[in-house]
């Protein structure tokens, strides 16, 4: 077990290395660089831009150096000093801009994950134990629907319904009154009132998928001979289901983590733009639009690293929970 964990952690390092290289390549891909955009900005504000200044700037930022040296500098600063470079749009260090927003993304993803589990677990069990009942059909339909509706569209429709029926603006995370207020119980309650919309919107596709896997897995387990044996021996139905098949069928909840997480982070990017949440999504989008590549690249790097980290945790959890998984 320990060997397996060590092995996985060792594999984590090259993965993150590859992510950083890919990210850096992507940063460099758009035509032009940092300085061309900067020059355009200066010209737009009516200042004279000399070729000399641009060359000097390129030299200072190291943009005239070969690719691998630029990469080494970029990643070196990140690893050694936590310095992600400078955002040209905001004219502030990228690290300052990122941290606060990254926490919201993490909080939203984890909140959604918990929501998904809490909802999918009982419904999956109910659907499997009451196969082909009316409720099962309803849940199956909702499941298909949840997977078929683009999440940003769902967010738009919820916003529209919320506005026309209840007259509340569901966008953002706080009401205007609490936006700049210090933390208090009332502010927290206000946050919860706003948070359910993105959580439901983000969670519905994952929940739908999880219900279907849970249902299928549990149905497979319920047909196995050991269940018949236990039933024949007079075991109580409730104890029987909860003690054996459910435990086996639980695996997708943990292994699903690995695939749910990238989906959540992806989804959060779009949802946040629609619902104007203070997560990484809108800022990354704006950074991309204005070619602020260091800022956008840092977001991609951090989000990908976090996702891979989540996958690592879920793999280790899975190996710990399910003894049938061969290690190594």
């Amino acid at each position: 077990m320990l060997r397996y964990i060590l092995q996985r952690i060792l594999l984590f390092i090259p993965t993150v290395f590859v992510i950083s290289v890919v990210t850096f390549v992507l940063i460099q891909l758009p035509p032009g660089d940092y300085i061309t955009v900067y020059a355009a900005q200066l010209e737009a504000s009516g200042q004279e831009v000399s070729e000399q200044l641009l060359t000097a700037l390129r030299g200072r930022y190291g943009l005239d150096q070969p690719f691998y040296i630029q990469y080494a500098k970029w990643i070196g600063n990140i690893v050694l000093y936590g310095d992600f470079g400078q955002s040209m749009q905001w004219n502030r260090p990228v690290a300052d801009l990122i941290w606060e927003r990254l926490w919201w993304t993490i909080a939203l993803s984890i909140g959604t994950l918990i929501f998904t589990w809490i909802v999918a677990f009982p419904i999956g069990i109910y659907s499997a134990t009451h196969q082909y009942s009316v409720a099962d059909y309803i849940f199956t339909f909702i499941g298909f629907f949840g997977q078929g509706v683009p999440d940003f569209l769902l967010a738009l429709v919820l916003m529209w319904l919320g506005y026309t029926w209840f007259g509340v603006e569901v966008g953002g995370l706080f009401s205007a009154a609490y936006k700049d207020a210090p933390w208090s119980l009332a502010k927290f309650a206000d946050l919860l009132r706003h948070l359910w919309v993105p959580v439901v919107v983000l969670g519905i596709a994952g929940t739908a998928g999880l219900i279907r896997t849970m249902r299928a897995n549990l149905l497979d387990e319920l047909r196995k001979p050991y269940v018949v044996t236990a039933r024949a021996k007079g075991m109580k139905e409730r104890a029987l289901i909860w003690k054996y098949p459910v435990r086996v069928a639980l695996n997708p909840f943990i292994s699903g983590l690995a695939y749910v997480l990238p989906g959540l982070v992806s989804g959060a990017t779009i949802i946040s733009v629609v619902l104007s949440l203070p997560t990484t999504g809108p800022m990354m989008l704006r950074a991309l639009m204005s070619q602020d590549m260091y800022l956008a690249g840092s977001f991609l790097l951090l989000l990908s690293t976090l996702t891979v980290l989540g996958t690592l945790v879920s793999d280790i959890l899975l190996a710990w929970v399910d003894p049938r998984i061969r290690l190594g």
Partner: protein
Amino acid sequence: MVQTNPPKSRKDLQGERLFTASQWQLMWWRFTRHKLAVISMVVLIFAYLTALFCEFVAPHDPNRYDPRWVLAPPMKLHFVDKEGRFHLQPFVYGLKSKRDLETLAMVVVPDESRTYPVKLFARGDPYELWGQFAGDRHLFGIEADDQMFFLFGADELGRDSLSRIIYGGRISLSIGLVGVLLSLVFGIILGGISGYYGGIADLIIQRVIEFLRSLPAIPLWLMLAAALPPTWSSIRIYFGITIILSFIGWTGLARVVRGRFLALREEDFILAARLANAPRMRIILRHMVPSFASHLIASLTLSIPGMIMSETALSFLGLGLQPPIVSWGVLLQSAQNLRSVVLAPWLLLPGLFVVIVVLAFNFMGDGLRDAADPYAM
């Protein structure tokens, strides 16, 4: 002595047909038992036919605009006129601008003094079908020069939403197909190498797949889409987007192909073919591919809706296709904020079509997968 067979009963005939039926015939029979999947297939055929003949089906030119009818609400089809007379041919009322006395804004309201019958094969805006055949007959519409026909309302420039949705379908529905085809090529080549040869190649390809699957797709797509030069023509942007979409899509298909290859490699009939000294390419193409082609088609069908949704999402965010092109994602851009949605809820209608198509693909793919599974009987 001549033996005469007793006349065969219907059941026997069916049984005999079952034994002599080809693999594809068996699949088709199983597929038709899945009612929802069959309905979905009809819906999709309808959608693709509409997209194919969009110049003819759409009542208007998607770029024809009229500033008088900015954000005109959808017209209602009427069968009974003001005098209470019934008309078999539906008609619509004309539109007029009026100042809202409460908000003082200009709004478009129906003008009940003018009626226009809705005709089949009506003359309207001239078009060139597939850029080849000129015409001005539309499947349905009203024949009037000073009044446009807004069955689904008008957008913020006074263009017909229905026509734009129909034209948008051509791009949105085809981008999924092209993307999936590209994914399929990558998937079969890489998955095939991975599954058939195994060893180092397998190890590397599997690591690459795991790596790509562990990345959050949308941020990655956003980065890739931002890297497309803004000077590109719309058609190049379109292909750029499909390549970006298939960049991640191939991993799922490669896994399916690899799994099938691994399973088939151990089958007796492959061993027999090998012992009969069949060349490797013949084994792959003649013996292996046909036995998982049906499975592959099902997987393909299930991966198209993902592509359609991704295109919609990218374009919606403004990083995919850009406005001169009409796609469902581009159309939804105008419904991006709450204000415009509250003002003109019909701007959300393209989303309804995304949902219908995606659900239809999902149901049909489910049906195909069940039909392709030989153990599902």
